[in-house]
């Protein structure tokens, strides 16, 4: 305890005025100042005495907070009558008087008897109970809710405190040593082995399921993050290993019992590495494109889950990716990864970051695409991959863009003839699927072409299937003016429904007009895209909208 006395030069810390006031309050009016002066130190002594006893009572009540009952107990010990009325209930509220630094008064409101009498009986307080749990099992604290929060997260700070306080008395250990049971160690070893061995894919799959669903793995998370970071930095040449590691990351993310946030900052670099590294795997046959695609989805997953808690996460990520994309010195593979990553982050990101840079980038890509200029087949193939990726990103973006217009297909459910409506609404999807598959197919074809023919793929060759898939649009589009299409499209699309009701058609036309005005800019975007990509963008445009624009 420490005693800070205010007003050092006074005889006693109780001023004589206080004594005088008290004397008056009990009816002694003629107390001489000398007597008050003499009494003051004694009052202070008595108060200290009572407080000392009160502290004893507090200690014996196994508390570290002094309460009114302790003071009563102290008065009892001195054979004095306790002061009544303070032991019950909660703390009395004191209020600070306005304008005075240390003037307090009790917030004592007048109570109406009637209110007190009519008030419902208070709830009986909960009765004392005993709850039993394991604080430690053979020296290790189990991670159960009854115990203090996990040591894994807290331990470093705690150790620091001990270090400062106790100096050499406490031996500092790694916090994790305390918590990692033998079983967990074994589990970790097994998982690490499986990840590294690559020989037993079925078992590895089982392991991934276990990682994604088992509870109680949390103590291992720091180990896993370390493991992943180490292996990624070491095994950039080992494609399969990287793929396995990314699977592990995904499983960890999926596990609902794991609190992975604190380790995200360790995990992200490894993941991003797998996305935009120059070289992943050392063999030609390694399909690092797949790995990049997978990782892109992973990144998107992380951003979706933790983007709210870590506001900077996505912005930092996109910055990294855009930097990788816009740096002409970076390899094409890196560009590919960056594009896929951005595409996975959502259409808004693509629209804002990719489409705005599309023109300069495509001009950069142009020479690489040209078979005559770029002799290296590998390079040319990569360029085409990138081209495909960027096309897909842009296409999906514009597709999404067009889809969000109060949706042309949306009126269809309101049609009386539901069957027909369905036909219409499903048609674009089907079409899109077809387009997607054809788009997806094209790389394979390209691959075959690269493998098979010496001449290298020409744009025409590649695009033919897509072109074939949508001949009408192709033929119509260049000739038609936009205004004309505005009027024509609904008519042609909805010709079947003409007999339904003309009135409806008219209203729909009005809606479409509205929409068209709203999204003139996206229309412009489409035009721009078309200028850049030529016909290749068309498969992405849903047929309804397509007809609308054409």
């Amino acid at each position, binding site marked *: *305890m*420490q005693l800070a006395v205010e007003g050092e030069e006074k005889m006693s810390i109780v001023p004589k005025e206080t004594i005088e006031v008290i004397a008056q309050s009990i009816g002694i009016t003629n107390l001489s100042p000398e007597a008050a002066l003499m009494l003051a130190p004694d009052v202070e002594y*008595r108060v200290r*005495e009572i407080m000392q006893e009160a502290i004893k009572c507090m200690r*014996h009540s196994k508390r570290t907070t002094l309460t009114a009952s302790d003071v009563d107990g102290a008065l009892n010990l001195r054979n004095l009558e306790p*002061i009544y009325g303070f032991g019950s209930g909660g703390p009395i509220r004191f209020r600070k008087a306005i304008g005075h630094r240390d003037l307090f008064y009790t917030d004592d409101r007048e109570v109406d008897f009637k209110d007190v009498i009519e008030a419902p009986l208070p709830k009986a307080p909960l*009765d004392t109970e*005993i709850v039993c749990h394991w*604080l430690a099992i053979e*020296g290790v604290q189990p991670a159960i809710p009854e115990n203090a929060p996990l040591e894994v997260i807290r331990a470093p700070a705690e150790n620091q405190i001990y270090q400062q306080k106790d100096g050499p008395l406490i031996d500092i250990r790694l916090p994790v040593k305390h918590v990692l049971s033998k079983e967990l160690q074994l589990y970790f070893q097994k998982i690490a082995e499986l990840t590294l061995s690559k020989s037993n894919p079925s078992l590895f799959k089982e392991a991934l399921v276990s990682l994604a669903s088992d509870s109680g793995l949390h103590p291992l998370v720091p180990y896993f993050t370390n493991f992943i970071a180490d292996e990624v930095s070491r095994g950039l040449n080992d494609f399969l290993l990287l793929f396995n590691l990314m699977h592990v990351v995904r499983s960890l993310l999926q596990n609902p019992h794991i609190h992975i946030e604190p380790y995200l900052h360790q995990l992200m670099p490894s993941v991003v590495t797998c996305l935009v590294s120059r070289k992943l795997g050392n063999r030609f046959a390694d399909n690092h494109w797949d790995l990049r695609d997978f990782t892109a989805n992973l990144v998107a997953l992380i951003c979706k889950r933790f983007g709210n808690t870590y506001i900077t996460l996505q912005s930092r990520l996109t910055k990294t990716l855009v930097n990788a994309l816009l740096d002409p010195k970076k390899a094409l593979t890196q560009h590919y990864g960056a594009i896929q990553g951005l595409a996975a982050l959502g259409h808004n990101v693509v629209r804002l970051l990719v489409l705005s840079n599309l023109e300069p980038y495509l001009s950069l890509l142009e020479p690489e695409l040209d078979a005559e200029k770029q002799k290296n087949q590998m390079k040319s193939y990569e360029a085409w991959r990138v081209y495909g990726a960027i096309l897909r990103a842009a296409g999906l973006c514009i597709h999404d863009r067009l889809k969000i217009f109060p949706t042309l297909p949306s009126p269809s459910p309101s049609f009386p003839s539901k069957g027909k409506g369905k036909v219409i609404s499903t048609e674009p999807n089907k079409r899109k699927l077809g387009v997607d598959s054809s788009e997806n197919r094209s790389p394979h074809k390209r691959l075959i072409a690269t493998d098979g023919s010496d001449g290298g793929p020409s744009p025409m060759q590649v695009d033919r299937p897509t072109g074939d898939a949508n001949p009408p649009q192709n033929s119509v589009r260049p000739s038609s003016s936009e205004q004309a299409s505005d009027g024509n499209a609904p008519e042609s699309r909805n010709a079947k429904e003409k007999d339904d009701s003309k009135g409806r058609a008219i209203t729909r036309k009005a809606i479409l007009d509205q929409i068209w005005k709203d999204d003139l800019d996206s229309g412009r975007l489409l035009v721009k895209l078309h200028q850049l990509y030529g016909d290749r963008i068309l498969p992405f445009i849903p047929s309804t909208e397509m007809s609308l624009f054409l």
Partner: protein
Amino acid sequence: MDPEQVDEFVMGYLKKKGFNSAAKHLQESLHNNNGSSFSSIDYPNDPELTKLIRSFSQSENDPSRYREGYSKLRSWGYNSLDLYKHELLRVMYPVFIHCYMDLVGKGHTQEARSFFNSFRKDHEMVHLRDLQKLGGVLAPSHLQEMEFARSLRQSKINIKICQYSYDLLIQYLHRTESTLMLGIINEHINFQVYSGQPNSASDDIEAVTIVGSFHETADHVNQKEIHWGLLEDSLEDRLEKTGGLLSDSEKGQGESKAGDDSKKRSAEIGKQGSSTKKLKKDKAGTATTKVARQETSTVLSSMPRVKPELAMPVMSTDVEESILEDLRNRVQLSSVAMPSVSFYTFVNTHNGLNSSSISHDGSLVAGGFSDSSIKVWDMAKIGQAGSCALQDDNNQIVGKNGRRNYTLLVGHSGPVYSATFSPPGDYVLSSSADTTIRLWSTKLNANLVCYKGHNHTVWDAQFSPFGHYFASCSHDRTARIWSMDRMQPLRMMAGHLSDVDCVQWHPNCNYIATGSSDKTVRLWDVQTGECVRIFIGHRSMVLSLAMSPDGRYMASGDEDGTIMMWDLSTARCITPLMGHNSCVWTLSYSGEGSLLASGSADCTVKLWDVSSSTKLTKAEEKNGNSNRLRSIRTFPTKSTPVHALRFSRRNLLFAAGAYYMSDTVGSIFLNFDRFGIMAVFVNMSRDLRRATCDAIDRRSQIVVRFAVA
């Protein structure tokens, strides 16, 4: 110096001292002789004498002389050679408090206070609690009233100091003619001068602890012989005899290792001198059993054995059997083999739980409450219904079948400060602020006896290790020994200078240890009622005690969170165990004495490795290494201060504590108008580390502020 001047001085001195008749005679003789009466003394040629006369003639009542003298001495002390500094600074504290008390005694309250406040910072670190007490002394009458102050005034303080430091100090005092300081030092300090180099600064704690006249008596008391050995024919022995047959290979290994230690120990015991005499007698008396024991060659058998001085209760065979069974199944604990800890959390106590205890087998838990009630839970029953009770909160208020699931024992008329179980768990002993101790039966759920005898609140009561006898301690500064069948206490132990706060039996039942607010722990002989050991070293009130199972060591925990480990035979602190930062409520040794568990208000249970210390004691005493005991594990609880700890006979650790409802610690306000203080309010910081306690007078000024750290 003129003879007339001398005469004047003498006259002044005599008058001041009140020797009126002597002064009159002197005046008369002066008139008669018309010359100096001191002509026979050659004072003009004796400068020392002149100075002395001068100093006597100075107005002695000048309070500023204390401040001057002390501050000079202080600055000299701080500027002295580093090697001797700490020894010289040790002198400062007694001088400081005596200066202060002199000033108060002479009625210079104001000067006393300003003196106190200007220098108290120097001593706060070590003597905080003493200073706090002294700070309240403001009038001469308080000096008389307060026991602490009185004992300080009456006794001399022993200070060990090396020859050179002593010379330095005396030289300084003479050179600067600070007779006042010299007077205080002569009056209140007893120097124990030794030749050689000064001790290192940190080694002896005793040097800085001042507890009145304790030291001489303590030194004297601590010479007495004690027999810390275990009882003959104890259950452990019996186990070993039978255990020789049962023990498997790994147990045998452990024992052979321990056997080596026991050899060392027996060699040590040989040096103990006086205490071994009786041992030999004992051994001679039980020569035949001795031979049998030597064959088993285990730790315990080589320990000295003593006969019980009390008539021991007879243990029923089935109880004995179950204890033997437990001992056989005991888990061996060490710094690598940690115990499991089962924690009993009291919820909804509404700050009313004063004490709790756990029976030896962990099946019963008792709580003493401030509403005078005692509640006993049978954990075996709760264990059956416990899981479902946890699930729905509504059922928690009343038990499953509409009844509360504890036994309520009502009888006390004041807060219950302790409730403990008898070793077999068939009785509960409770002590209360109503000055009584009550004995309850857990079988009948009823009060059996009410023991009256103490004059004040009974803080603690503990059964002896074999039951039947129990010890109690109280605010009336006594500890008492009782037996269950007598209404009156059998022995009364008086000697502590303040409340006796905790009591603990020695495993052999011949001694009890008591911890007190006077910051000492005492060991008492149960048979004679004499104090046989005084342990000095704590800096605040002692709250918990534990005896090692081999009876050789004792651990005590205090208000500041320090735990001290004592060697009973030498009354020396082996080492302080630092780590807790708040009150240590409870201590418990593991069954074989290798681990010490401590529970504290800082919401942790700590385990300390004490086996290494006991092995290396001798070797390390020479090295002077005091940091060898270490905390090997800390278990934080979820904001639950730990009230009670108990190692079961099988070495499972049970802990109990009351969940502290949230951290919203508000203020508590009281009316104090009887003392002119209108209100006191207590503010607690969120981390429960600091509290301030303000007293407010009628004009709403803060008049006293205590800060509790």
